[in-house]
């Protein structure tokens, strides 16, 4: 997509990390087990 493959990789990693971070929060809250910002249990 971009000429510089490094940008490709950085962009990919950032997007994926953000996705999984959000996923973790979503999945745990949906079960009634909220998390703090650092992914520790909120209860």
């Amino acid at each position: 997509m971009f000429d510089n493959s490094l940008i490709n990789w950085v962009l990919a990693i950032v997007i994926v990390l953000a996705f999984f971070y959000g996923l973790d929060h979503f999945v745990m809250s949906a079960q009634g087990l909220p998390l703090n910002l650092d992914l520790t249990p909120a209860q």
Partner: protein
Amino acid sequence: MNKKPQLSRWLPLLWLILALTGLSLTLPSVAGAADVSATTLAERIRPVDAGGVRPELFAPEAQAGERIAMPAPRLKREDYPSIGVSSRSVVWVIAQMHLFFAAFVLAVPLFVLVIEWIGVRTGDPRYDDMARECMKISMTAYSITAIFGGTLAFALFLLYPQFMGYLFHVFDRQVLVYAFLFFAESAFLYIYYYSWQALRHGNRKWVHLTLGLMLNTVGTTLLLIANAWVTFMMAPSGVDASGVVTGSIWEIMKGPLWNPINLHRFIANVAFGGAVIGAYAAYKFLSSRDPKLRAHYDWMGYTANFIAILSFLPLPFAGYWLMAEIYAYSQQMGITAMGGILAWLFIVQAVLIGTILLAGNYYLWSGMSRTPGARRYYWLIKYIALVLVGSFLVWVTPHTLILSADEMKTLGGNSHKLLGPLGIMPAKNIAVNLMLIFTFLSFQLFRRSDKEVTVSWAGFGNALMVSIYVVAVVNVVFAGVYYGYFTNTVYKVGSSVIQVVSTLTVIVAGVVIDSLMFRGARKLPTTWGQVSNRAQYALFALPVAFTWLMALMGYVRSSVRTHWHVYTVMKDNSPDNYIPTIGHAGNMMTIVTVLFLLFVLFIFWVASLADKKQPKPAFLDGGAA
């Protein structure tokens, strides 16, 4: 030139809507007539002139449409019939054989329909031929299923008459629905198979596909009905504590475990069916010398394995959902299964699933020899193998060991200090999810090996894919280790969902990204038939392991009820009301697996028998004239 007429393309969809509507309307009301009318029979048939009529003639004791309030029978040991051998063992073998074949005959039409449809979409006649060949195998299996079903019914009524009386009292008219559905199943099965060539092209093909859809609808309904009986025994609903029916047939059917078992069995059937067909293909491959036939069966084996492994991947999650529902219904039942006396069975399960995944992966790696484009991925294989074996070892490690007092003193407890933590769920969940992710990786590499990407964003696409794999693996390990060992129970249990979703993300992302990225890709040559004989043995390992695993899991499902015919409602006081040793159970599973193997070989043989034509010998031809 195949111009598909537009109208008939919608026929299947129309049928689907009609079938679903019809089923959802008829099933509850046909089977559950308890709430049919507010007026009594007497009122409904009351003569106009009520003067000279004796009212007692029209006031029956039990009104028609109402059920007698019958609690579950409370049996003593003497109430159980005995035929000199363990009744449990008899029913076990017959029931398990019935389940094996039922799973097979329900599964085959499912993926046959999909393969047939792919054949229509691609125009490739290989798919249609394979679909038809699979159905041929299924036909013989169908009669064997019915035979075992009938035998099972006989055995159950002979050996557990009061239990069957109670069960059929609870399920009432629905039992007849089940029986009558077999007319529909048989009709659709025979018509679907025998009309294959007559309904081969164009408009008629869509009619044929619709017939296949109807076959699958009826088959799935049969599965759902039978599942209700089994889940009622585990987690009864619609009855009170003494077993008296208090709910409608729908409430009785829709217990907490019904849908988890429905999903699990539906998917597992497909995986199982695919595995058996794969064995058929492998067998034919090894028996053929003609390179064209070998190529055909190699391709068929690959397709069947594809179906088996792809449907296998979501199975642990479906099984997990079932287990979670069991825990939610009764923590006691759940812990009996996984933390109590049945816990060791799950170590055996680990051995079986390890076999399945290793065999499936090995087949995929071997298959990469068919195409030169696979060479660029060879270096990854050893790492995949490493992760698979390592995860398998973790999965197979137990936690609580059954030890004598001396052994406990030496060990310093009932679990090993270092390896013990690997025995509990968080470690196992990590192991399973990693195994599934890396199996999918093998899959994905194989699918990519015969293609060369031509899209412009390939670099980003690949970076994305690799990142998803890496981050998913990290997430799975993090969730398992942190929430599993450093937080409380509820967070520990909840973290497994993170792991599942991460794995599913990899699978879904892999499928989507690949399908987009390989648009217009350059195809590299694939030589079907160019695969080692050794690889075919992986295709035998798969159904053998699947079969044994089915027997194992069926046994867990049955014995988790402990000494109850219907959990908490009808106690089991038979001479077999104890959980046997795992060795005994294992031996029973081996017996049914070997029996099934022999029957399947018979089926394969019969399937090829129809193709054999004996050439007319010369002496019958009127001599040398």
